[in-house]
């Protein structure tokens, strides 16, 4: 019974979104359903936070290896939540200065803004920056011009990397005007404009076809994996 109702909900929700562009009277339903979807997506963040709390508290109570880091995670989580939900340090918005809670939690000067600017941003951007080393190192070890396909990938990557830097301009700047198309910066533009456009376009079409077929399978109840193993 629970499974049948879930499949019906999936079908009705999906069909509402699907028919709304074709039926003017269904636009209102689609907007309403979109709002519900956004609310549930927001609730999913709460679920994620709750799950994190549960897992870290279990690790903390078990006093297993690394429980100290669990305590740090919990502390960071609780403090962020407290300053964000409590709008600590937020001043009232200019449109309603008499209402103390009218300001946004991430307004400049607030504690939540401070955490975002001085804790979250530096850590996440450095984590991404560090990937430069790992990508370069992995490429150095894995890239071998063993066959035509691998050579194409390798040469394209080099042209794009050099063509977008000053080094590329210097390296092929001596080429005469009639051969200017072979300058690295121009080659990079040609690759992006022609070959990359064609390849990406086919990938995008392929992904869209995959999304559409998966959507139909989900709505028709042919794919029920999201209901769990005992569904």
């Amino acid at each position, binding site marked *: 019974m*629970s499974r049948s109702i879930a499949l019906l909900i999936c079908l009705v*929700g*999906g069909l509402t979104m699907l028919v709304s562009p074709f039926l003017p009277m269904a636009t209102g339903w689609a907007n309403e359903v979109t*709002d519900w*979807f*956004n609310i*549930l*997506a927001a*609730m999913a963040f709460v679920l*994620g936070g*709750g*799950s*994190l709390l549960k897992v870290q508290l279990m690790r903390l109570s078990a006093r297993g290896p*690394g429980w*100290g*880091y669990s305590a*740090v995670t919990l*502390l*960071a*989580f609780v403090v962020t*939540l407290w300053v*964000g*939900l409590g709008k600590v340090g937020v001043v009232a918005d200019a*449109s*309603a*200065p008499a*209402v103390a809670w009218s300001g946004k*939690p991430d307004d400049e000067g607030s504690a939540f803004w*401070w955490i975002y*600017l*001085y*804790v*979250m*941003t*530096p*850590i*996440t951007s450095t984590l*991404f*920056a*560090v990937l*430069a080393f790992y990508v370069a190192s992995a490429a150095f070890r894995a890239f071998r011009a063993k066959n*035509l396909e691998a050579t194409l*990938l390798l040469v394209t*990557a*080099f042209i*794009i990397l050099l063509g977008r830097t000053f080094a590329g301009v210097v390296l092929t700047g001596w080429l005469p005007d009639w051969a200017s198309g072979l300058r690295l910066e121009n080659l990079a533009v040609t690759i992006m404009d*022609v*070959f990359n*456009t*064609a390849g990406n376009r*086919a*990938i995008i*079409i*392929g*992904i*869209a076809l995959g999304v*559409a077929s998966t959507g139909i399978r*989900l709505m028709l109840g042919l794919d029920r994996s*999201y*209901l769990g193993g005992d569904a």
Partner: protein
Amino acid sequence: MSDVIANQSEPTQGRWWIGLFLVIAVLVAIRAGIGEGMGRVYVQTESTSYVSTEGEGGRVSWSAVPGVTEDSVTIDRDVFRTAGQYRAAEAAAPGQQAIRLSWDRTIGLWLAAFFTLAVFSFLAGDNPAYKLTESIVIGVSAGYWMVVAFWETLVPKLLAQLAPDLVKAWCMPNLEGGAFNPVALVPLGLGIMLLSQLTPLGRHVGRWPLAFVIGTFAGLKMVSHVESDIIEQVRATVLPLVVSSEDGSLAAWASLRNVLIVTGVLCTLAYFVFSVEHKGAVGRAARVGVWFLMITFGSAFGFTVMGRIALLAARFEFLFIDWLWLIDPKGERGMSVVAAVMQSG
């Protein structure tokens, strides 16, 4: 807790890391003691007064006024000022308090520098500073997205529908409408069912909101993907294979470009067709498609590396410009500002 953290590394490794961080601390201390110092953030408080006026239908609107009056509300906001502006203000009026050192932002800057170095330290190997930073960002990220979801979605889309008067008085005075909407009880119920997944009994109850999310997302994405990623992409690929220039002659490069794009898209799509065996004409087309895919992946790789290098440069800029004050490309801390003030004085 420091015992717990220290116990997780080998003793020699632990000593090596402590030594490295001590060396960095000494170098930073030396830098802080040289010249104009480093890593300070200055702010200036800007006060704005607002007065209210009542418009049509009793709607209250607020506008900024130049001075403070009896019925005005004043809001103070701290805004960033550069070290150059601080020094210029000091040169003009020694001991002034308008532009001052912000302790909370200065501490934040130093913490950000520590976190940046701690993440970089992972390049040399896993260590307590990196683990500590990792634990912090996990907790902060989870909290951050929960707070954003609460204030950006749950309050305006759910609470404002269920208790509009309360929300209006509490945090959204400009909220439109004001009647209780019983339909909002549906997403509330579904949300509570979703949250029940955290309890042992919630596995079955949580199916319904999950089915709703998956169904609506599938419908939503199907429409948008078919529209923008199939119809629009196919339309953009329908190109003239022979292009004429304005004087009627053949535009060779434009024609070749279009031929390459059309051929590339068709051949790459041929590679993705797995229901037909890749033999004969289809096989040859698929092979050309693979070449196009390899060039696409190569350019994607190049761009990814470039993006990461740009981020790396931004982190070094933060360390050398904002924290260590070793370079000053924008002239924000330059003595020229002070000299100009002294001359004008």
